[in-house]
């Protein structure tokens, strides 16, 4: 088992240039600001003194290449600068927000599987028939709805009309969190389900036509036990990589959804930072989100290898 994970060190090594690239992009974000960045960041509150101070704080008075290496050096020491709004280390703010966004994402992932697996099974067992078409309509609509709008509609329906769930916030106690996170997680799950359903439906149809399922059927397996024992695990393999890619997309969506539901995670942190022109915070959130996507990519490969004995990413072909 562990033998097949030999590819992991090489995969990590491959990510090094990408991570460097990410730091370059994050660094240059400040330098795309037209004119003097310090002046733009401070806006109406700019005075010559404050501009000079911010220039020094951001290191904007040095040549660009020097600035990048200063930025990188600080990064290695774990310093992302201070938030211009809160006058606190950005790292603290980000680390506070990460568990909230992460629990939202995990919740959404679980809900999306709860939605996708049965729907894909329903569609795949009767391709071309009524319930397959109904599922296709669901996926088409699901893909076509703006995520934040789905959130608003859920608030309207389940929050305002039926009063089943709170319409915003994160809750005060640990027990309240899942209750408060349900609607935002459902919103993201609806956004994520269509691609999962499509992929799972296609691979399930393939698996159902295979010889080993035929054998299992002839031995008397049917219904849910056939599905659980023989079909799902094999059909899930291609879907895992789709979910991996999707998770990256989901992070982007969760930033907007947090704003809709007033959840104090990374998204609210970033959007608020944009409105207050708090550049160190914007950079930090962008950096962490990109690192998260890179890590998810590696984890996807690991899971892929573990659930499918035929996959061997350690072989030379892939490297």
């Amino acid at each position, binding site marked *: 088992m562990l033998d097949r994970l030999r590819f992991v060190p090489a995969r990590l090594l491959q990510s090094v240039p990408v991570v460097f690239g990410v730091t370059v992009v994050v660094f240059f974000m400040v330098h795309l600001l037209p004119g003097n960045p310090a002046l733009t960041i401070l806006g109406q509150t700019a005075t010559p003194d404050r501009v000079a101070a911010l220039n020094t704080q951001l290191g904007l008075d040095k040549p660009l290449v020097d600035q990048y290496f200063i930025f990188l050096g600080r990064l290695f020491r774990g310093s992302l600068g201070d938030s211009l709004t809160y006058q606190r280390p950005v790292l603290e703010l980000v680390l506070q927000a990460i568990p909230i966004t992460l629990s939202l994402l995990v919740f959404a992932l679980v809900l999306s599987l709860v939605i996708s697996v049965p729907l894909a099974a329903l569609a795949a067992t009767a391709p071309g028939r009524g319930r397959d078409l109904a599922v296709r309509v669901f996926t088409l609509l699901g893909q*076509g709805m703006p995520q934040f709008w789905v959130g608003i509609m859920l608030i309207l329906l389940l929050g305002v009309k039926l009063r089943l769930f709170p319409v915003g916030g994160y809750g005060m106690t640990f027990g309240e969190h899942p209750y408060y996170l349900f609607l935002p997680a459902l919103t993201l799950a609806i956004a994520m389900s269509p691609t999962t359903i499509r992929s799972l439906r296609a691979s399930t149809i393939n698996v159902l036509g295979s010889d080993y399922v035929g054998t299992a059927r002839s031995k008397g397996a049917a219904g849910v036990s056939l599905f659980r024992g023989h079909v799902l695990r094999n059909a899930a393999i291609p879907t895992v990589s789709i979910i991996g890619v999707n998770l990256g997309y989901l992070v982007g969506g969760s930033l907007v959804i947090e704003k809709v539901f007033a959840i104090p995670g990374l998204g609210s942190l970033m959007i608020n930072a944009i409105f207050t022109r708090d550049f160190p915070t914007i950079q930090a959130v*962008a950096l962490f989100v990109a690192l998260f996507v890179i890590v998810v990519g590696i984890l996807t490969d690991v899971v892929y290898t573990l659930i499918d004995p035929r996959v061997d990413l350690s072989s030379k072909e892939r490297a």
Partner: protein
Amino acid sequence: MTTAVATAARAMRRPARSRSLRPWYRNGTLVAGLVIVGLLLLAAVLAPLLTPFDPIEQDLQNALQSPSGSHWLGTDKYGRDVLTRLLYGARVDLRIGFLAVLIPFVVGSVLGALAGYFGGWFDVVVMRIVDVFFAFPFYVLVIVLVFVLGAGESSIYLAIAAVSWVSYAKIMRGELLVAKKQDYVVAARLGGMSHGRVLIRHITPNVLSQALIYAMSDIVMDIMAIVTLGYLGLGIAPPTAEWGSMILDGQEFITTQFLQATIPGLAVVVTSLGLSLLGDGLSDLLSPERRK
């Protein structure tokens, strides 16, 4: 290069993909997509003729009216006709959505095609850059870039171009990796044709369809991005009618006038539905062998 060789090479050109036998107008998905997208574009273009109201002018005495004979979808908090703003919003959202795909389509396809065809260091460099951009979720980069470049239409074009060229590059590189080993390409090269001629005259017509099909879903993504930016207050500035900012305005009155936030969202849903059907239909038409 002798003419004989050129003729031979041309003769070996890969035959056009086996098109499905039924004519395009028998393809229900494609036709449905064309009709929906066509009607939307028509509504956007004809907006001034379709409604007697102005999308921007305020009429506070008639604010927040429910749907009626004169205001079919009611009025917003400034007394503006919601249907009128919906129609004028289509002009903004559809125009930006359709135009925004052009730059990334061209830039991404060209870079990806060159990377796939020539390989070597150019391929390595382009693909590493693609990897870096793929690490940032779409919305994160678009939102940050639009903020940095300043809210407005031209910033949206630039931000979307900067983010979405990578998908086209990836698709075209994959296509070229396959295409360059095919007989018709090898024959053309052996016939003495230049790389440029082979790429443009022989390969491009055969591989462009995948990028084109992807472009349909990309337009949907772009419209989502424009609407999302509008909702966040980072996109097209008010009072211009735009679906995203209409949803933002309507959210305030969700308990009393829920249509205000619902209707513009439905407009996005119909638009994406039309474009998705168009994409699926195109895919049936252009590369039937890839569909199952």
